[in-house]
């Protein structure tokens, strides 16, 4: 992650504060739908590339309903890619046996496997990013609490997210001060970084004590209450039903093959 990372985190969360059809959906419904979607994407086999196509409907419809620009998703995807890419890149090397032929040209199982991993990567990670971009982190946290996540975990999520921006800015200032005084170096040595982070840590602990004082002054006893009203309504039921239908159909029916067969049958 880079210092710019904190900016990305802010901009993704800010998208959710706008009033859009996707933002109005109940957070719990979106959390559960996203988890189900991710599980269904993962359930397809190594060579099921083509069957993943219908699943693109879920992230694209959510992005459209939430007014989320696609480039807000592409940047994090590109940054997160290295590991999945690294593993996927081994596929064509390991599995060279031709699995398919087209017009005399053989396509190896590894090539299909690689493409499948990449498609799954794009689908499931964009779903995770869209959850935040259409819901907002605080609403996701409330949803998790209402779905049974422990109180201590939800408090951690909220506070980590709140102070991430403050501390990332402090770390950024330290790095800039270092860059100005050590122009020849691109990044600090381990020793310098240790001192820098140590100072950041000492300041962070002092901040935790000040925050605790501020919390105590307003009657804090250990709970961070969030006021979020609303219960699932008709749009939520519709969204849940549509998602369930999409996932069931994509799982049970080979949609592209059916469509292709129908097309071939329809032609004279």
């Amino acid at each position, binding site marked *: 992650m880079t210092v710019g990372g904190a900016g990305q985190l802010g901009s993704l969360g800010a998208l959710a*504060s706008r009033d859009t059809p996707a933002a109005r959906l109940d957070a719990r419904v979106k959390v559960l739908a996203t988890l189900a979607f991710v599980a269904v994407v993962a359930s397809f086999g190594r060579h099921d590339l083509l069957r993943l196509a219908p699943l693109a409907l879920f992230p694209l419809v959510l992005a459209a309903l939430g007014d989320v620009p696609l480039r807000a998703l592409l940047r994090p995807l590109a940054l997160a890619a290295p590991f999945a890419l690294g593993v996927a890149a081994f596929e064509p090397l390991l599995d060279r046996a031709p699995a398919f032929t087209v017009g005399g040209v053989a396509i190896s199982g590894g090539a299909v496997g690689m493409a499948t991993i990449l498609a799954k990567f794009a689908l499931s990670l964009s779903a995770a990013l869209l959850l935040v971009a259409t819901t907002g982190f605080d609403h996701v946290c409330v949803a998790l609490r209402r779905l049974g996540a422990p109180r201590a975990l939800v408090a951690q999520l909220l506070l980590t997210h*709140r102070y991430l921006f403050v501390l990332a800015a402090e770390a950024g200032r330290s790095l800039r001060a270092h860059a100005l005084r050590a122009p020849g170096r691109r990044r600090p040595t381990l020793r310098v970084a240790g001192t820098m982070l140590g100072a950041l840590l000492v300041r962070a602990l002092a901040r935790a004590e000040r925050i605790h004082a501020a919390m105590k002054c307003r*009657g804090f006893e250990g709970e961070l209450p969030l*006021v979020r009203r609303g219960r699932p309504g008709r749009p939520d039921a519709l969204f849940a039903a549509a998602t369930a239908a999409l996932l069931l159909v994509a799982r049970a029916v080979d949609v592209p093959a059916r469509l292709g067969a129908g097309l071939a049958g329809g032609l004279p």
Partner: protein
Amino acid sequence: MSHHLVGVDDVHYAYPDGTQALRGVSFLLHHGESLGLVGANGAGKSTLLLLLAGVVFPERGAVRVGDWPVTPATLPHVRRSLGMVFQDPDDQLFMPTVEDDVAFGPLQLGLPPDEVRARTAAALARVGAAHLGPRMPHRLSGGEKRAVSIATVLAMSPDVLVMDEPSAGLDPASRRGLVEQLQAFEHTKIVASHDLDLVYEVCRRTIVLVGGTVAADGPTAEVLARRDVLAAARLEPPLRLQGCPRCGAAG
């Protein structure tokens, strides 16, 4: 039953590392008074505020707020009467949105949801921040953060409003807005600050702390005109009490 609202009686306090922060501070504050607390860095201003709020307790002497001595057992009562605005809004605003943050205090008081909503809206309106409700604290400007910090305390309807360096880090226009707001509050106020012009405009009474003791206590206009006291406290008179730099005429 006493007539004063805040009573500090011969209070001593040392930090855990042994540094003596306060050595025998006493004063009484009555309803409707506005008190400026001035002094150099390390003079004991912030420590005194923490003692008032019951975040720390004196090793000698006593603090009273309203009808209650400030002790661990009376804290719930003390916190209904005394609202504390900390220096760094990033410490004060710990909830994910402005609304959540302003509602935090009233919810901890156990108020019903409708009352919490009403108080949140009223407090935000009072500081001119009604439109900031759903925003995230880290996306606010310095002046907005300060206004919301004050709203988080106003929502608890305190009898005394205590503020630590309220004008720190504000641009001149935000600072002017803050001064006007503070002048308009009918609350009993305690303002700790280096900004003597702010104290001059907002507080009728001023206490100067030097080395953990009270060096002067009296009407602001008189105290801030005493150059010997200010020099001992490593302070400068407010600009409006200084001579005109152009013509040399006295302030």
